[in-house]
């Protein structure tokens, strides 16, 4: 178990990591999700012992490891770039973490065989890494991390440099591999889809802070705040500022309003968040909120269409199942079910029962 308490790190005036507390269990996959510069890599470097935080404590299995250099921590890392020893064969590459520890040759051979089977590298053991494809090279790097039997395995966007389809394949394989390792696993990614496919727990990071930490799906379905919902939405979350007065949420400078069952603070602003795939072209029930927008561009992606439209001077996008085409600047009605709309208060926290509060206009 890896415990981080109030970890902060600043370099010059820039805050890299801002008061992060996390508790990561062995055998579970922990994902750090956030855009570039959110502090994912900085936090991982602190976990590995490559950097020292300015404040806070770091415990592994109850032991304080803050002063312990990386060499003594039994950490394995896999980077975005495929890092292998170019002059060694795949076998020697995978075996490299073991050879420093005086392990017998037969033992090494059997462990390499096991790991290479798992990662489907059996046929390439005598080749050099540079003769392999990108996906295979990254598998070699993963195998090296696996064979080490490390307590902490850190994966920093390991699939980012791979082809789309290869990424899909490895994504599907990884959770199974991780389950076998029994280590604390930390995995950084910028892509919400990747986090959802991998499952496990997710920490949403933004500007050095952990916005929220919990089971991945739970975070996705019930984000505590607007920032988490934003990070966890691809295509981007649609948002709209609303004004509350006398039981009604009003869209500024518009006749449109949303009626509520419960009371909110009178005279305050709220933010409505709608995930693109929750916008439909047909009304499912009379309760649905209707949003009329002017289409800017329609993109077609296989089985679905992304309709970009302008709504209240904001760029919105709807993910529609099937192929639809609209002319540019056509005015179209989109519908969202009340149970799918997220309502955030002034401090951008989710109003917990907001879905039950919204009524039909």
């Amino acid at each position, binding site marked *: 178990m890896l415990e981080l308490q109030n970890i902060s790190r600043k370099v010059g005036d820039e805050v890299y990591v801002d008061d992060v507390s996390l508790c990561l269990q062995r055998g579970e996959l922990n994902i750090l999700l956030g855009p570039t510069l959110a502090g994912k890599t900085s936090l991982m470097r602190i976990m590995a012992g490559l950097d*020292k935080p300015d404040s806070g404590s770091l415990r592994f299995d109850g032991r304080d490891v803050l002063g312990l250099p990386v060499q003594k921590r039994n950490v394995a890392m896999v980077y975005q770039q495929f890092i292998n020893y170019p002059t060694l064969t795949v076998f020697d590459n995978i075996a490299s973490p073991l050879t420093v520890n005086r392990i017998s040759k037969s033992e090494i051979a059997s462990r390499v065989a096991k790991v290479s089977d798992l990662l489907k590298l059996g046929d390439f053991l005598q080749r050099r890494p540079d003769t392999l494809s990108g996906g295979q090279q990254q598998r070699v790097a993963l195998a090296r991390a696996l064979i080490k039997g490390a307590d902490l395995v850190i994966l920093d966007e390991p699939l980012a440099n791979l082809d789309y389809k290869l990424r899909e394949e490895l994504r599907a394989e990884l959770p199974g591999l991780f389950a076998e390792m029994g280590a604390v696993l930390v995995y950084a990614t910028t892509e919400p889809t990747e986090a959802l496919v991998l499952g496990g727990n997710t920490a949403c990071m933004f500007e050095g802070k952990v916005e929220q930490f919990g089971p991945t799906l739970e975070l996705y379905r019930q984000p505590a705040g607007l920032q988490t919902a934003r990070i966890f939405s691809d295509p981007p979350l649609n948002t709209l500022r609303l004004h509350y007065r006398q039981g009604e949420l009003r869209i500024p400078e518009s006749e449109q309003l949303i009626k509520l069952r419960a009371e909110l603070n009178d005279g305050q602003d709220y933010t409505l968040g709608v995930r693109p795939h929750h916008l439909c072209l047909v009304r499912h029930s009379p309760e649905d909120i209707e949003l009329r927008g002017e289409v800017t561009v329609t993109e077609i992606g296989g089985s679905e269409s992304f309709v970009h439209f302008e709504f209240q001077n904001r760029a919105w996008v709807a993910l529609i199942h099937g192929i639809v085409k609209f002319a540019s600047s056509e005015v179209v009605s989109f519908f969202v079910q009340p149970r799918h709309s997220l309502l955030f208060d002034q401090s951008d926290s989710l109003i917990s029962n907001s879905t039950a509060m919204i009524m039909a206009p």
Partner: protein
Amino acid sequence: MKTVNNKAWLMVLPVLLLVGLSAIIPLMTVVNYSVQDSFGNNEFFWVGTEWFQEILHSERFLNALQRTLLFSALILAIEIPLGIGIALAMPKRGIGVSICLVLMALPLLIPWNVVGTIWQVFGRIDIGLLGHGLESLGLDYNYTQNTFDAWATIIIMDVWHWTSLVVLLCYSGLVAIPEVYYQAARIDGASRWAVFRYIQLPKIKRVLLIAVLLRFMDSFMIYTEPFVVTGGGPGNATTFLSIDLVQMAIGQFDLGPAAAMSLIYFLIILLLCWVFYTLMTVSDQAVSATKGRTN
């Protein structure tokens, strides 16, 4: 990697001690000499800044300084453009690369005094290939008599010896430029000059700075080669600061003025290096504030 590990200090301790013994203590000795006078018998008198004033007002020093500055300026003006030019002309791949690199490295491997001796012999009118050759072509060449010939010989010798350093540094910068930059430039219809000005030069600026600093410091402190070839002559024509300094300190045993002069010499080098550095990095300042962070 910024691992905090105090053991690292122990590792550098021997070097620190060595530097202390070999650099700081001698430097302090020089400082000590520069403010005192001695009439032998190990008796010293405090003279304050007298030596410094004397040196700064001495025509001999100012002449030597002028000569040295001119020499450095000529060296930089020739070697830097020539070095860049050769680096640009060198092949980027294939067997030619290693041939060129070996050829370029050869002059760098020869010790200073040997270079001096080679050119001294090479330039002699009676037996030297260059000197005798020019003589038989009817050209009046004599580096021991003619100031221009002496300068030309020393400058050509230095260019022959050190241009390859500039070449190698620039070449390392040039080969690190990704191919797409050239492709984009071709598509933008950039001329050869525009490619150099807007792609190659900005990318090799950092190594070029190192080259300029190294060549400046080296040429400003040049001693062995002119000492071997011309011995500072004809007359004082090639008496550079370093030669003058040695003459004063060892030839005349004027320790006080020599110490003051070496300190001034040292400060001039520091000052000029700082000027070069600031001039060449001034536009990078803004960048370093926004860059330097990857995540």
